[in-house]
């Protein structure tokens, strides 16, 4: 029997407000804490958890950025003649997204969303790699780089598989007692909340289902490990959207031309602008200041939220909506959705949650990037106490020789990983 298994369970969107009045995991993980989220969407939150750093450092923030020079989407420009009635259909977009992802060899999550083909060649996509894999960050290391460099046997969910497939895969690893670190990712609650809102009667059954799975995992782990350190956590919460804002129509009424005077990405809860002349900057800024239900985020606030990028790569001006307001239409969708996240991290429904069976959660674990610290600490402890050094190890279900990193990391100095300013993508 091995000594310790750190088991980290990531339930997307299982925010503090979702579970604070629910007995979720009370018997398995009774110690719970509200955590600050990270400003942005899952594209910012997940990399922050996995790297222990904030967007300003890892540079995974919002998916689409104005960067025509490096846009991989130029080949889609001919599709601009297709009628919007076809190209805005979700099923068409999903089908095209799959084709584009294969063609461009993107390894992370990818969706064309609702970016019009007329403008898509203005944009680059910033998550070409999967943060749930080694070398998956735009800048620096993530937990999987660390585990590989430290020769710690681990298993991580494959986001291309279903939740139940990933559960079964983890159960197999636990029953074999092969790993010293486990990471499970379950995204389905996020989808449910987006569709049905945070008061849906389906939430409680979903949580009970997760509890049953967690019990399965714990039981399997306790057969092979003397101590299972269980952590159940989320990246953000979910707010119901009861107000819709057509910012695009308001902006389109200005005597300015998209692509020539300015460029904007309409995310669901924010709009990010790049300006090509002072007149555009002035007119757009004035219009945004007059717009109800949102505000321009000052640089000082972006800095406080660790989302100020000196090169303005993700936008020169960020307009953020108050919680509960949704941009419709946006580049993320043509039609409304019941609930959304991506508001200011201090809005009520933005907070994430951490639940654990560990009685002594450090006081300085206050925000989702701090989860990385728990992962590293417990993985190192498991490596030491499980005495797996010198044995063949398993990583991601495949056997590798000890004392050898992944091919991509071979020869790389582990001391270089995670150091700000090195080994970054072009971003």
């Amino acid at each position, binding site marked *: 029997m091995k000594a310790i298994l750190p088991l980290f369970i990531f339930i997307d969107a299982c925010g503090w407000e979702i579970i604070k009045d629910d007995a979720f995991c009370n018997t398995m993980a009774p110690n719970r804490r509200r955590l600050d989220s990270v400003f942005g969407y899952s594209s910012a939150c997940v990399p922050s958890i996995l790297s*222990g750093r904030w967007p300003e450092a890892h540079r995974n923030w919002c998916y689409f950025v104005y960067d025509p020079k490096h846009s991989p989407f130029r080949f889609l420009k001919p599709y601009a003649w297709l009628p919007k009635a076809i190209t805005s259909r979700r099923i068409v977009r999903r089908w095209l997204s799959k084709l584009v992802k294969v063609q461009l060899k993107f390894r992370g999550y990818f969706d064309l969303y609702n970016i019009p083909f007329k403008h898509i060649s203005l944009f680059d996509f910033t998550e070409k790699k999967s943060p749930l894999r080694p070398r998956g960050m735009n800048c620096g*290391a993530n937990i999987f780089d*660390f585990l590989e*460099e*430290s*020769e*710690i046997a681990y298993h991580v969910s494959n986001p291309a598989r279903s939740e139940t497939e990933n559960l079964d895969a983890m159960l197999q690893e636990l029953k074999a007692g092969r790993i010293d670190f486990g990471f499970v990712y379950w995204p389905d609650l996020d989808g449910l909340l987006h569709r049905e809102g945070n008061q849906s009667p389906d939430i409680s059954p979903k949580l009970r289902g997760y509890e049953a799975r967690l019990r399965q995992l714990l039981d399997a782990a306790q057969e092979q490990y003397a101590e299972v350190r269980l952590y159940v956590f989320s990246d953000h919460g979910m707010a119901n959207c009861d107000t819709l804002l057509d910012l695009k129509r308001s902006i389109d009424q200005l005597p300015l031309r998209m692509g020539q005077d300015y460029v904007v990405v309409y995310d669901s809860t924010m709009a990010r602008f790049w300006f090509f002349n002072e007149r555009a900057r002035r007119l757009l800024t004035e219009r945004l200041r007059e717009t109800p239900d949102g505000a321009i985020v000052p640089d000082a606030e972006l800095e406080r939220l660790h989302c100020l990028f000196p090169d303005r790569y993700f936008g020169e001006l960020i307009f953020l909506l108050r919680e509960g307001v949704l941009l419709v239409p946006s580049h993320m969708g043509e039609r409304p959705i019941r609930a959304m996240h991506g508001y200011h991290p201090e809005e009520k429904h933005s907070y994430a949650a951490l639940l654990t069976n560990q009685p002594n959660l*450090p006081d*300085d674990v206050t925000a989702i990037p701090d989860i*990385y*610290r728990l992962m*590293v*600490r417990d993985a*190192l*402890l*498991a*490596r*030491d*106490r499980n*005495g797996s*050094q*010198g044995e063949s190890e398993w990583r991601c279900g495949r056997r590798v020789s000890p*004392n050898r990193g992944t091919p991509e990391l071979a020869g790389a*100095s*582990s*001391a*270089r*990983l*995670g*150091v700000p300013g090195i080994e970054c993508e072009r971003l």
Partner: protein
Amino acid sequence: MDINRQNGTLSVTGLRELNSANAHSFRSAVATALSHDLQAIEIDLSQTQTVDGAGLGALVSLYETATAHRDPDGLRLRLTNPSPPVQQMIELARLHHLFEIAPQAGSLEGTRPQ
């Protein structure tokens, strides 16, 4: 590797490497010298050329052993004078949240656990 105790401080010096070759013997030797009346543990890394995952694991394990059943604030754990590559490993593993990192042995300056 030398382990000395003086005035409530356990000092570890002469550690040339902290890796899979010696991590267990390092941890066992220091753990054997632990006692409840210790006020500080100081590990001098000035001669340490390499640290790997096994070495970092030994440090975390030592931290857990030393702080078990006692208030971590009542015990100072310091890693002194790490070389830049070793310090980068320590920072990558976020051990600066567990240990105080001091640039020179005996110096009171340095980073407190955050």
